[in-house]
């Protein structure tokens, strides 16, 4: 190693300039990471592929300004020089730098970092009097030349720069190393990559705008942010408060909250912070504190009437600094023609409205405003100067037409940062081959390594009808000692998804399978999920098995073991069939295809075995459940209703209203397996195991629940999970079962989210899972659709290997990586839930959009009031599973009143809100009172909005329960109605598409086939998910 020194002039603590000397070591062994390297560079890690026509070396300016374009996967063979990376780090800040780091880490992008400043031959010291920029350009050029020579000229190197002098100076200096401008590069090498050109133009324009603006520098709209050190010191001394800004969805202009250790601080002086940013807040004096607005509000942007602030004043503050910006891609809509004319003055700059209410309008400079009018468009925010009312951004790409199903779904995906391109060829090439002609077979070598359960165990799976991706199977048998052996067998996905393979990277990025109302986006390619990893009956499959030896009487666990196994499932049962067998229903036998074509005696014998196993399982499950209940496990209610469709978009499976006992049996076995695996991995890896925790909820969030319950005369004890479970069971109104359902859903809303975490980042007493009442819990049983399970599988394998073969810790994440991964998975799960909810709402709106209550019976339904506001009520419509607001005072200030036949009308009058009821009194003296849990008849309307998602609105039309002739029937079949809804909408959307563009229709239909739901999920998973969804979904909108 050579040692040199760098002399730097730095600003010292007191503003004095300090001379600092730093060592700088140069070495010959910096790996070049090229696939073509003829020398003996180490070849571990990511390599540049050799099937490109050239390597491209962007200089500092290009990396700083056009990183987004370099992110295009089409651009290959990119070498980021260390000099350029450091420039980004110093000048662009952490966010941009992390973006660059992630790009380099991502195995799917063909780009690398070359540490040119540490290489003996490519390092150039900065000369006296040389400017930083000049030195950087010179270093990068020199490194590019070195790289070209290092590869013996096999591959031309193109350096792209924005510096005209450099192009002139170096352009012809070395043969094989070209220096051109970025625009030139895109034009010459990627003339067909239209998206990149557009993005280039829009970034360039945004930059020019910014430059010209900074020269103008007109009057300031916002106070400047405080410098970082002052904010940091202020936070430490307690003068400022740090927190994440949370904008109120319903009053985006007026209210935003910062949630910190439980109390919210409301502030209107948001000072350029955007929803999701981490900010520092300074509290205002007490006399300026404001209360929370309780009135319902229509989300109209022009509606700026001062809201009547009621409620107790709460701490109010203003933002003094933004600690971390959380900008992402935003879906926006360009203003319609009429609106844009009023804005007209500056034709190139357009104010666009984001889809998300919480995001302010964004100023875009583009010439395509007219052409993009009817489309949903993605933009990015570049900056927000204190001189500007709105942030500046640039246009990125078009999603689709407004109101078009595909466009809207794409908007939902972008808003939740979900990226689901089809699996690439390179990923598919990693998959094992399995076709109907040439089915996949067990590898004989692998067979020797695994425990063979094919002949010794009776294994079967219980799933919904028609399910294809079976990731779990069960077995039970009695041992010679008289004890029982219970086995849970989970598909061994990790066998086919090697750590850090392309498929693994992709699955990690997706983190979960995304389920939207009408389609789904798989985490793993379907060859795995539906075939090789699916534990189908009669086929040999790899599995990971957990088996317990249970005491024969008490079912105490005596011994547990974890094995890699080969299994052959004997039966693939449907829930209904299994329940039929359990109940002794002989008709159920006909539904088992595996028992057909057998003679009478073998059939009888096999059937008896199966029935014994199922009933034994049920008995064990009851036992475990009872034990868990005694610790305080909660039974929670998710109001969400799910629809399952097959690939022709027909109703395929409906969730029965009353879950069968078999569901619980299967769910209980899975919980048991998850629990024991959690124990095992947290013991073996006390600092790097992935577990799932559910922290106990804060008591103050239960206030609303307690108040609501007391309105009906129930008392809810929320002190512990056990007390809560018991009091929720008691709060049952025999006349109105919905009350209990609503109370349970309120309880779930009050709870915090269940989250994945790494055991190294959290003290052991916080591992507890509140909802399930288990001290340790993880996810192990669905590796096909959750990435967390894959990680847990790897951990479990490493844990068992460690015991037999000593220390094998490869592919185990360190605590820090795991923590980051957990954050990512939690984040993705939240996005998945949001996307699912939004897509359901989208379908609801599209369904009701062109129906009017006069012509359509379906728009009128029965609703239950579950919350009272000053100018209206929140209503739950059980038939469609809709929660929405109903106003009692309209825009003209008229209030609702009822006639003798209890039909409602609008009349002048006033409203009075009480704790658990609301009364409207008209000027003529009539009054109507609505109280909590009253049944009313509502009309369902859709409030359309050009820029945002449509919303459902309710209108009270009768102050009495809905009594349509078909009410009974529809009540019973409300799931049917719901699924009809999705079907109707998607069919009409498809029809519209076909009519619109005949040519494209077929392609689209194909895409449809690819993405739409092709298989059902097992019902226990659904139930489990509902349970957890309920735990997770603490959305703020319910409390507004």
């Amino acid at each position, binding site marked *: *190693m050579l*040692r040199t*020194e760098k002399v730097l002039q730095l600003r*010292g603590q007191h503003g*004095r300039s*300090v*001379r*600092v*000397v*730093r*060592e*700088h*070591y*140069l*070495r010959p062994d910096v790996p070049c990471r090229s696939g073509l390297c003829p020398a003996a560079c180490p070849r571990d890690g990511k390599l540049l592929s050799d099937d490109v026509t050239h390597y491209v070396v962007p200089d500092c300016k290009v990396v700083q300004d056009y990183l987004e374009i370099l992110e295009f996967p089409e651009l290959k063979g990119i070498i980021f020089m*260390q000099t350029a990376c450091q420039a980004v*780090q*110093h*000048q662009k*800040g*952490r966010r941009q*730098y992390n973006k660059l*780091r992630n790009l*380099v*880490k991502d195995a799917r992008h063909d780009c690398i*970092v070359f*540490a040119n*400043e*540490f290489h003996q031959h490519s390092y150039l010291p900065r000369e006296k009097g040389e400017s930083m920029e000049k030195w950087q350009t010179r270093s990068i050029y020199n490194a590019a030349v070195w790289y070209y020579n290092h590869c013996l000229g096999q591959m031309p190197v193109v350096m792209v720069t924005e510096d005209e002098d450099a192009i002139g100076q170096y352009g012809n200096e070395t043969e094989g190393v070209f220096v051109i401008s970025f625009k030139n590069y895109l034009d010459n090498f990627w003339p067909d990559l239209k998206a990149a050109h557009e993005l280039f133009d829009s970034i360039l324009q945004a930059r020019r705008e910014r430059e010209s603006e900074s020269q103008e520098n007109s009057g300031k709209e916002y106070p400047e942010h405080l410098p970082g050190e002052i904010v940091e010191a202020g936070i430490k001394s307690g003068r400022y408060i740090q927190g994440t800004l949370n904008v109120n969805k319903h009053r985006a202009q007026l209210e935003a909250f910062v949630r910190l250790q439980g109390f919210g601080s409301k502030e209107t002086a948001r000072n350029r912070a955007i929803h999701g940013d981490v900010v520092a807040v300074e509290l205002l004096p007490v006399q300026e504190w404001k209360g929370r607005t309780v009135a319902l509000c229509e989300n109209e942007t022009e509606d700026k009437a001062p809201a009547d602030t009621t409620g107790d004043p709460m701490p109010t503050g203003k933002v003094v600094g933004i600690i971390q910006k959380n900008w992402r891609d935003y879906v926006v809509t360009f203003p319609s023609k009429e609106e844009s004319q009023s804005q007209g003055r500056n034709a190139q700059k357009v104010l666009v409205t984001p889809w998300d209410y919480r995001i302010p309008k964004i100023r875009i400079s583009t010439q395509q405003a007219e052409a993009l009018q009817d489309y949903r468009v993605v933009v990015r925010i570049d900056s927000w100067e204190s001189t500007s009312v709105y942030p500046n951004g640039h246009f990125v790409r078009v999603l689709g037409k407004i109101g078009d199903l595909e466009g809207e779904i794409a908007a939902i995906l972008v808003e939740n940062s979900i990226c689901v391109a089809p699996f690439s060829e390179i990923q598919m090439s990693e998959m094992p081959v399995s076709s109907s002609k040439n089915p996949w077979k067990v590898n004989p070598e692998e067979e020797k390594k695994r425990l063979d359960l094919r002949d010794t165990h009776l294994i079967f799976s219980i799933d919904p009808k028609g399910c294809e991706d079976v990731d779990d199977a069960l077995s039970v048998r009695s041992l010679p000692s008289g004890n029982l052996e219970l086995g849970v067998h989970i598909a061994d996905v990790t066998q086919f998804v090697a750590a850090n393979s392309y498929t693994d990277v992709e699955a990690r990025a997706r983190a979960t399978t995304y389920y939207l109302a009408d389609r789904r986006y798989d985490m793993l390619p379907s060859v795995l999920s539906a075939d090789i990893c699916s534990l189908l009956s009669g086929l040999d499959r790899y599995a990971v098995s957990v088996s317990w030896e249970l005491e024969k009487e008490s079912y105490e666990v005596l011994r547990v073991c974890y094995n890699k196994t080969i299994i052959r499932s004997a039966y693939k049962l449907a829930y209904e069939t299994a329940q039929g067998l359990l109940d002794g229903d002989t008709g159920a036998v006909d539904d088992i295809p595996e028992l057909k074509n057998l003679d009478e005696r073998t059939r009888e014998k096999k059937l008896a075995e199966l029935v014994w196993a199922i009933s034994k399982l049920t008995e064990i499950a009851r036992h475990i459940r009872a034990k868990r209940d005694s610790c305080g496990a909660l039974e929670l209610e998710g109001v969400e209703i799910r629809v399952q469709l097959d690939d022709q978009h027909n109703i395929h499976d409906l969730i029965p209203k009353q879950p069968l006992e078999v569901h619980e049996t299967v769910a209980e076995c899975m919980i048991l397996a998850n629990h024991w695996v959690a124990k095992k991995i947290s013991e073996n890896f006390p*600092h790097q195991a992935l577990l799932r925790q559910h922290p106990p909820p804060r008591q103050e969030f239960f206030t609303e629940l307690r108040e609501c319950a007391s309105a009906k005369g129930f008392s809810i004890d929320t002190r512990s999970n056990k007390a809560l479970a018991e009091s929720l069971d008691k709060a049952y109104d025999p006349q109105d079962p919905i009350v209990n359902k609503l109370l349970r859903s309120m309880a779930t809303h009050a709870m915090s989210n269940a989250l994945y975490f790494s055991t*190294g980042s959290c003290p052991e007493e916080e591992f507890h899972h509140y909802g399930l009442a288990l001290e340790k819990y993880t996810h192990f049983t669905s590796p096909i659709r959750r990435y967390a399970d894959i990680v847990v599988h790897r951990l479990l394998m490493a844990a068992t290997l460690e015991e037999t073969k000593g220390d094998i810790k490869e592919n185990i994440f*360190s*605590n*820090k990586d795991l923590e980051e991964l957990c954050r990512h998975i939690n984040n993705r799960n939240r996005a998945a839930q949001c996307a699912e909810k939004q897509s359901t709402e989208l379908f609801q709106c599209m369904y009701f959009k062109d129906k009017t209550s006069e012509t359509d019976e379906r728009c009128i339904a029965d609703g239950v009031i579950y919350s009272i506001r000053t100018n209206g009520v929140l209503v739950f419509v059980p038939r469609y599973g809709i929660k929405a607001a109903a106003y009692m005072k309209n825009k003209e200030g008229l209030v609702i009143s009822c006639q003798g036949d209890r039909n409602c009308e609008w009349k002048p009058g006033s409203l009075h809100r009480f704790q658990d009821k609301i009364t409207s009194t008209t000027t003529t003296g009539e009054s109507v009172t609505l109280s909590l849990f009253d049944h009313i008849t509502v009309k369902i309307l859709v409030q359309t909005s050009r820029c945002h998602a449509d919303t459902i609105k309710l209108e009270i039309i009768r102050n009495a329960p809905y009594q349509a002739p078909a009410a009974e029937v529809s009540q019973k079949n409300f799931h049917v109605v719901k699924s009809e809804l999705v079907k109707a909408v998607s069919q009409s959307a498809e029809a519209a598409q076909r009519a619109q563009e005949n040519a494209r229709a077929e392609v689209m239909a194909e895409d449809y086939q690819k993405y739409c739901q092709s298989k059902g999920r097992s019902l226990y998973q659904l139930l489990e998910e509902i349970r957890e969804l309920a735990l997770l979904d603490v959305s703020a909108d319910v409390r507004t």
Partner: protein
Amino acid sequence: MAAPELLSDEGYRADGRRPAEIRKVRARMGVFEQADGSAYIEQGNTKALAVVYGPHEMRGSRGKALPERALVNCQFSMATFSTGERRRRPHGDRQAGELALLLRDTFEAAILTHLFPRSQIDIYVQILQADGGTFCAGVNAATLALMDAGIPMRDYVCASTAGLAEDAALADLSVPEEAAGGPVLALALLPAGGQLAQLQLSARLHQERLPRVLGAAGAACRALHAVLDRVVRQRLREVAALLGD
């Protein structure tokens, strides 16, 4: 501006070293003629001078003399010009006093003090330029000076710092790395037997990570040992040549 990272994704530290690599070491023994032993060491930009007198009779208060072994008297000081900004460091400053005590503990463990009852050994360490690991450079210089003075020791005393960047252990920290706020572990090792003569930790460090950091510091000490050993042998050859004349 984003905070600089200690270890890049490519596995380089800010100055181009890999996590386990130590800085360049240069050393000379016998830099002063008048003292019994002296040595000068450069570890990167940290430069230290050590001078040893003794063993000799007790000076000053004779009452302090120990009946069964020699007294090791240490002084540790930093030159006013040793840092980027000149700062006066009076002799009595607390940090220097503390380091002198640590130095004494370290060498009492290494010198065969029982061979010289009722006598005194003086070790003076002066840091000429500070760039991280000043105490360790002082220990290494003192070892060479003691060797130069011909004072019998159990083994070399080699010292090095180590720290943590996220999860990787870094050996031989420079000033910016020390200033990053992570834990800094200073280890003085007797390499032949692997005994620890001194172990110091500046911040809280999880038990789980201690072995990793300790391992890195130990490896750095052994690497230093190789260098110091070479210096001593080189010096021995030179002196032998002089004696031969």
